[in-house]
C-alpha cells in the first residue's frame, strides 16, 4: 500500500478500514540468500537497499527482540556531515544526501527536518580547527559556513555571547544538518524492505554460526537453524557478544552513552546547537522537549543506563550555554550501548570466515550514518566489494596503521 495525502482522505471517508499492517510477521524459512542479523536502523536499511538497489531476492532480517528497539530508538536524532578526515567525510555526506531524499524514496514520513546544526566557537584555536573542518567539508561537497558573533546573535538571540564563563567567538554552521524522527526511520525501512519481499523475523535471537571449512553456512537461532548464502551482522552495541560466537575479538569496547529530554516547551531552540567549551549538544523535538546529551560514562557497560557523575557533567554544560534549561524539568533520561572502536570510526568489512560480513563500531555516530551504512553494507554483501564511500572502514586498518582518528586521541575508546 502506498501512503499519500489522497489515501489519508480516502481512508478518513471510509472509516479507516483499509489500512493494513506496515510489515508482515512471517515464519522463518529454511534458507535465505542473505541473512541480516539485527533489526535496527542499519540492518533494516541494509535489507531495504539490498532488495531495492541491488536486486537481491530471498533476504531475511533476524531480530532478537522487536525492530527498532536498540540504538535507533535511543539516540538524539541528529543528522549532519561535519567531519574532517577523508575516510569519514565523503561517507557522512553521502549519508546526508540519502537522508534528503529518504522519505520520497521509501514512501514514509520520517520527519526529516534540515533545521541546521551550529558548533559554537569559544577560542582562537577552536576557530582555526573549525575553519579547517569547514574547508574539509566544502572540499567533499558538503555545506559549511563560518558564522560571526553578530550573525549568531541575530539567529539565536537567547545565547549569551559576552558575559558567559565561555564567551562565544563564532560558530561553524551546517545548514543542511538537522533532526529526524528516529523510530520512523526503522519503521520506514522495515516497511520498504517488507514490501519488496524481505522477511523481517522478530523474537529470533542468533545463538551461533554454523561454519564448515571456513565458510559460513547459516545461523543457529532461538527458532532453529536458518541457512544462508551470506550472513551480515549489524548489531552495533552487541557486536563483541555476537562475533565472539564466530571466535572473533574486535577492536571495540562497549560503552554507555546517556541522553535526556525535558518536558515539552514552546518553540525556544531553532536547530541543533553544540557547546564548544564542554561536551553538550541540544535540539528541540517537534513535541517540544529539549533533547540533549554529552559524554560517555567512560567505562565498559552493557547496562543501557548510566550513572550520576555524567548526568551532572552534561547538565553543567547545558546550564553554561543555556541557563534557561534550569527552569525546565527533566522528563526522561536513558542510556544506549555504543560500539566504541579504537579510532572512533566504524567498520564495514568481510571477516576471516567466507560469507560472514560485519557492520559495526559506530561509536556514537551511528544514527546519522544509517542510510549510507545500509547502502554500503548492501553493496558489500551483494557485490563482495566495498562501496567507494566505505573503503576506509576496514578491519585491518589498525594493523596497518591506517586509523581514521577524528580527534587524534589514539586507541582509547572512551575518549572518542
Amino acid at each position, binding site marked *: 500500500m502506498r501512503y499519500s495525502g489522497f489515501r489519508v482522505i480516502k481512508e478518513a471517508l471510509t472509516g479507516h478500514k483499509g489500512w493494513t499492517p506496515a510489515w508482515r510477521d512471517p515464519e522463518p524459512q529454511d534458507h535465505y540468500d542473505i541473512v541480516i542479523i539485527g533489526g535496527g536502523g542499519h540492518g533494516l536499511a541494509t535489507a531495504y537497499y539490498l532488495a531495492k538497489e541491488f536486486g537481491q531476492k530471498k533476504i531475511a532480517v533476524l531480530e532478537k527482540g522487536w525492530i527498532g528497539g536498540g540504538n535507533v530508538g535511543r539516540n538524539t536524532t541528529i543528522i549532519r556531515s561535519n567531519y574532517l578526515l577523508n575516510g569519514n567525510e565523503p561517507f557522512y555526506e553521502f549519508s546526508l544526501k540519502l537522508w534528503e531524499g529518504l522519505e520520497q524514496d521509501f514512501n514514509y514520513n520520517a520527519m526529516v527536518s534540515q533545521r541546521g546544526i551550529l558548533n559554537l566557537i569559544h577560542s582562537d584555536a577552536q576557530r582555526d580547527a573549525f575553519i579547517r573542518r569547514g574547508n574539509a567539508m566544502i572540499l567533499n561537497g558538503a555545506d559549511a559556513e563560518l558564522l560571526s558573533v553578530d550573525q549568531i546573535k541575530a539567529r539565536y538571540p537567547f545565547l549569551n555571547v559576552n558575559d558567559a564563563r565561555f564567551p562565544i567567538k563564532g560558530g561553524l554552521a551546517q545548514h543542511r544538518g538537522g533532526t529526524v524522527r528516529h523510530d520512523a526511520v526503522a519503521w520506514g525501512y522495515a516497511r520498504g524492505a517488507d514490501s519488496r519481499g524481505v522477511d523481517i523475523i522478530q523474537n529470533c535471537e542468533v545463538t551461533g554460526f554454523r561454519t564448515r571449512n571456513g565458510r559460513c553456512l547459516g545461523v543457529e537461532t532461538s527458532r532453529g537453524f536458518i541457512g544462508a548464502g551470506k550472513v551480515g551482522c549489524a548489531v552495533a552495541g552487541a557486536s563483541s*557478544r555476537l562475533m565472539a560466537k564466530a571466535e572473533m575479538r574486535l*577492536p571495540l569496547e562497549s560503552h554507555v552513552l546517556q541522553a535526556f529530554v525535558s518536558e515539552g516547551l514552546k518553540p525556544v531552540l531553532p536547530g541543533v546547537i553544540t557547546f564548544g567549551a564542554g561536551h553538550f549538544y541540544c535540539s528541540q523535538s517537534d513535541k517540544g522537549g529539549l533533547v540533549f546529551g554529552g559524554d560517555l560514562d567512560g*567505562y*565498559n557497560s552493557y547496562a543501557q543506563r548510566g550513572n550520576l557523575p555524567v548526568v551532572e557533567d552534561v547538565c553543567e554544560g547545558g546550564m553554561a550555554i543555556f541557563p534557561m534549561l534550569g527552569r525546565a524539568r527533566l522528563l526522561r533520561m536513558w542510556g544506549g550501548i555504543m560500539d566504541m572502536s579504537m579510532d572512533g570510526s566504524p567498520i564495514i568489512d568481510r571477516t576471516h570466515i567466507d560469507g560472514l560480513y560485519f557492520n559495526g563500531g559506530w561509536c556514537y555516530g551511528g544514527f546519522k550514518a544509517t542510510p549510507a551504512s545500509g547502502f554500503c553494507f548492501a553493496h558489500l554483501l551483494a557485490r563482495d566489494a566495498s562501496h567507494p564511500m566505505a573503503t576506509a572502514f576496514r578491519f585491518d586498518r589498525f*594493523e596497518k596503521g591506517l586509523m581514521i582518528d577524528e580527534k587524534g586521541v589514539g586507541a582509547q575508546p572512551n575518549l572518542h
Partner: protein
Amino acid sequence: MIIDHPLLGPRDSAEFTYLGDASLIDRPDGMAETAAEAFYAYQYLRDNPAGLHRELWYHEAGDRSWLVVTRDTVTHEIISVELARDVARARGRSR
C-alpha cells in the same frame, strides 16, 4: 558507582579515570619474533565481555594508585578491588 579502595576504603568512581581491560598489565615482549602481531592484539583487540570484567582504574583525584576492579558490565556491580601492583607481582612482574 562506589569503588572500595583497598587502602582508602569506599571512594566515588568520579575520583578515578578508566583505562580498560586489565590484560593491559601484560605488555608483550617487544623483542619477540611475533612482537608486531602481539602488540596489535594487545593494543587494539578486546574481549569486551557482557558480565564480569577485570579492568584498570586510576585514582587520579586520590592517592594515584592503579587498581584492578572486577565489575559486572551488565549490572555495574563491583565484585572486588585489588591494587594493580599486587596483581602484576602475582603474575611475576617485578615492577
